[in-house]
């Protein structure tokens, strides 16, 4: 039976419902910064592996940017490319998004658009924060 009170089916995540603020914070970091899961690797090993490699490459790009070895346009292109791939990775590995307030613990199954919105917005914030920080440090020049 469909529950119309949520935009999609509820997902129960044992790790995200542990009591305490530390557990909540750990779950948040785990969810936002680590798009892979064991279940994802079991269902699409090649895709998840490629995602892991691309995620690593995107991280290296930021490090290189921090060292002043990357052009701003290249960093944006890499981050955009990784963001598109992260949508695919997450849909296979962590196909859920949070419903309601960010401080809550209600999760629901993510559709493609939900995931696009989530990854797009999350990576926009991360990318903008890193970009502005590196720009103000003088490592990135536009």
């Amino acid at each position, binding site marked *: 039976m*469909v529950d*119309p009170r949520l935009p999609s089916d509820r997902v129960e995540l044992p790790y995200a419902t542990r009591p305490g603020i530390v557990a909540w914070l750990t779950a948040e970091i785990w969810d936002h910064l680590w798009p892979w899961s064991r279940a994802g690797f079991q269902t699409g090993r090649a895709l998840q592996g490629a995602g892991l490699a691309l995620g690593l490459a995107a991280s290296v790009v930021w490090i290189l940017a921090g060292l002043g070895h990357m052009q701003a346009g290249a960093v944006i292109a890499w981050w955009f490319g990784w963001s598109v791939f992260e949508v695919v990775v997450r849909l296979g590995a962590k196909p859920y998004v949070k419903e*309601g307030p960010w401080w809550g613990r209600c999760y629901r199954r993510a559709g493609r658009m939900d995931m696009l919105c989530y990854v797009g917005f999350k990576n926009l914030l991360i990318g903008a924060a890193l970009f502005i920080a590196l720009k103000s440090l003088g490592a990135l020049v536009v």
Partner: protein
Amino acid sequence: MIPTIDSPVARALMRYAALMLLLACLATTAGATSYEAHLPPELSTSPRMCDYVPCAEVLPGADSFSERKGSPPYVEGYRGSGDGKKLVGYVMLSTDITDLPAYSGKPVVTLIGMDARGYFTGVKVLKHSEPILLLGIPEQALIDFNHQYVGKFVGDQLEIGQSRPDEHIVGLDAITGATVTVIAQNQVMLNSGMAVAKQVGILKPTPRAAAKFVDSGAAPTWQQMVEEGSLQRLSVSPAEVGSSGAGPFIELWFGYLNQPTLGRAILGRSGYDRLMADLKPGDHAIFVIRTAGGESFKGSGFVRGGIYDRVQVRQGRDIFSFRDTDYLNLYGVAAPGAPAFTESAIFIIHGGNAFSAAYPWQFVFLGNKTDRETRTKTFVNFDREYWLPANYLQGGRPLVVKPDPTWLKIWKDRAGAIVAFTALLLGVAVVYANRDGLVRRSSHKNKWPVNGFKYVAWVISIFFAGFGLLAQPSITQVLTWFHSLLFQWKWELFLSDPFIFIFWVFIIVTVFVWGRGLFCGWLCPFGSLTELMYKVARALGLKRFQTMLPKRLHDRLKWVKYAVFIGLLAVSMFSMGLAEKLAEVEPFKTTILVGLFKRSWPYTLFAGTLLGLSIFIERPFCKYLCPLGAALAMPTTFRWFGLKRKQECDTCKACAKGCGSLAIDRDGRIDQRECLLCMDCMILYYDQHGCPPLAQERRRRTKSGLEMTRIGADGYFIPIRQIPTQAAEK
């Protein structure tokens, strides 16, 4: 009649959507002459400036021009030759003098002519990057705006708005819809004109009372002087001048030397005495040392023309430049703890009574920023304020009333409208926050407790916020922010349009709390206008012609707006100009900002067609085309508080049937991204006559003679529980 996806009506609508997109593309074909125009790279560097730009156009009567001279530079225009050669006036390139950006985050490169008496003779925009002038408003508007300066004296108080003769303020008509651009342009005109007028003696410097110093006899260390503010540091990073690398591009320390305590601390007793003996009355000495970076603050201009073109001192609107005769060597700094330095100088300010150390002044480093792609250079300046600490001045620091920045003046001038606009936004937010009470008072037959507020909000938004204040948020603003973030972010520019600024603060907050529906459904001037037209048409008897798209077709077409938004965002990565052109898919400029019949026919046809269509289909633009709606819909996925549903909504279609936004799917779930928060489903949620599960329970209780309890927050009658009697308990 509800058409099916394959019906002739649906096919006609599909063709119509294609036509709309075609019209939007057509509307973007109109070009602008100086938008992102290519300027010769030599323009910013060549001494023969007038070989590259039409100086004679802005200085009529001049037939020959000098090389660049002065600091900041200008050229002189002459008529005739030989002995009959006569000075006609001056021509200046705005970007030689000020780096003030306009709304786009980039400066409007303007060629300005001024006659020998200080009256503007001509203004020509060589290059601009203003999106609103690319498409929304004809470029002629900027030309007409600039033409207002012709014949006006550079020393007049020229301000955007009404003239106020009693305050000696000469008003200039703004460009409707491009307020920020013209405010920036006015500052560019005044800064440029005054900088040159003061150099050539048209404007006299402002007299200031001379400082009287306190000679404490102390010998402060370098660190002590830094801590008390009598030494200042100006640092420029490589990124600020378009280059890369670690460490500062240049780091300078500077200070004022006439003050005896400070002068002796820096130069030593004998050095100070020697300097003071050399200075004439009214002269002031400052020292500068470079402690980091490889760039010279002396530059090479003094070798060619005897002018130090990289440093200046400014006090108020007076600018003090240095020639080779104003320079003295500084061989060492006597103060204990002084840092090592690689370049040094003492500069003499021949200020007379125009410069006073009792008042704050700025030390300015003038640089060039190189565009990495085009290698063109643009002028930038970096300044640092200096004000002698009070303990070095007899009687302390004088009272200085600094003039309000332009954006603050606008906020003060429009305080009443700002308060009213803020009240509108807060009022709508408060009404929506109390929606539970309002929907409970409504029923499916009488929605006025909710709609009354909504209709009032629409009318105020359309006529007051939209047509009155031109507060129409747009995707172009999002793209402009993105652009400014990359190039040059200036809060002042965004604050210059208080209504758009306040609107965006409201939008960002409410999107995360309730979703985009509160703005799109209640406050967007264009959206309100289209839905109001739909409602009025219905009230006037056109209901039988009004229709809704079949859900399947709607579910396909709704993605178009996301494609438009993502397309615009992607294009903006490569070309902001093209993205701004394509953003004309929004009919806001034509309808609200400029006027339906003040633009070329493709724009009018496009906007008119959308408005006409809105009479028969509820909000077609908002549902299918609006890139701003799509941009706000995406974070709406994570709004904190959504609308309520009941389990029975999965099979009951009562709400879905009446949903004007077509945001309820076949499982009874609300697509929060599409929902415009009309509240119809929430009215039904508590309506014991309209909501089928509630109506069923109501009938059951009526038949059984049971009491009608209040409907709880879960949308059901509060259950009647039998409380055991005392006797039964015993």
